[in-house]
């Protein structure tokens, strides 16, 4: 029974010190503390913590801090007002993935152009194909290629 009372008192000691418990609880704890040495010790240990904490001075705020913050805010505001579009564009362009994709596309385009340039230069103007002894079909290979390309 006493153990249970001690447990309840100890759990509420911090609230007791902070005056954050009900009046009834306050009276109960006060009465308990007059008779229970163990709880008195805990109370003193808790009081040492709160008392010491309250005796610690607030740190001095650097005098130039608020001014420095205001400067940072002004800078952020200026960037927001003037630099939004360029910065968005720069983010867009600087994207590694985009750069990689653009480089790949450019490389493939160059290869296709080089291939067909070579094919056009080396290809004969016409090709003759003998179907039978007296039928020969002559076709313009360049136009054939162009037709194929147009189809693609």
């Amino acid at each position, binding site marked *: 029974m006493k153990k249970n009372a001690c447990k309840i008192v100890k*759990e*509420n*000691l*911090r*609230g007791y010190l*902070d005056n*954050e418990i009900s009046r009834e609880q306050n009276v109960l704890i006060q009465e308990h503390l007059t008779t229970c040495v163990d709880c008195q010790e*805990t109370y003193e*240990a*808790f009081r*040492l*913590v*709160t*008392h*010491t*904490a*309250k*005796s*610690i*001075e*607030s*740190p*001095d*705020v*650097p005098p130039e*801090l*608020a001014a*420095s*913050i*205001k400067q*940072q*805010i002004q800078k*952020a*505001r200026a960037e927001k007002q003037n630099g939004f579009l360029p910065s968005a564009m720069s983010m867009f362009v600087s994207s590694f993935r985009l750069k990689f994709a653009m480089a790949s596309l450019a490389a493939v385009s160059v290869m296709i152009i080089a291939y067909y340039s070579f094919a056009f230069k080396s290809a004969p103007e016409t090709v003759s194909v003998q179907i039978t002894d007296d039928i020969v079909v002559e076709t313009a290979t360049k136009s054939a290629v162009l037709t194929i390309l147009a189809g693609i």
Partner: protein
Amino acid sequence: MGYVFIQPMEADELLVEKAQQGDHGAFEMLVEQYTPVVYRTTMRMNGARHAEDVTQEVFLQLYRSIPSFRRQSLFSTWLYRLVFNVCSNYRRRTIREEQKTQAFSEQDGLSAPTQNNPEKSVLDESLKQELMKAIESLPDKLKTVIILRDFEELSYDDMARVLGCPVGTVRSRLHNATSELAQKLEAFVKGEKEP
């Protein structure tokens, strides 16, 4: 010592409203007004060396996010939440590595400044330093309640609003934090008394 930060300050709410409408002067007044409390809190959360940087980051984030503040709670409550979020993110980002190598609180000025005030110099300076070190070593959830209660002197109700948890949780966290600190101070006092 801290002052009671959370109270219905109509002037503040008016400043916030103006700042939300794009009044730069109003925002700068908020900066002036809240720099001390933000600085103190960041210093106690993350250490003196980082306090200025973190304070600046808090206000930059405040500048970006103030339009989205719905004024369903007090501005100060909302700001405290922002401060704790920024502190936590900043620490994750930059301080963890430092903590592994050295306890920054020791060389950081986290400990209480010495003052020649006879009324307040009754307590041993070393006890204060020990307490600050012990607070520094607490997990964030426990450290936060100690800072809000013992340094900023918030009521339990206000703490619950800031932390977004029931008052009962505030009570139990405060109990656990105080219990842990008491054990550390007790061990320190015993160690000091022994020859």
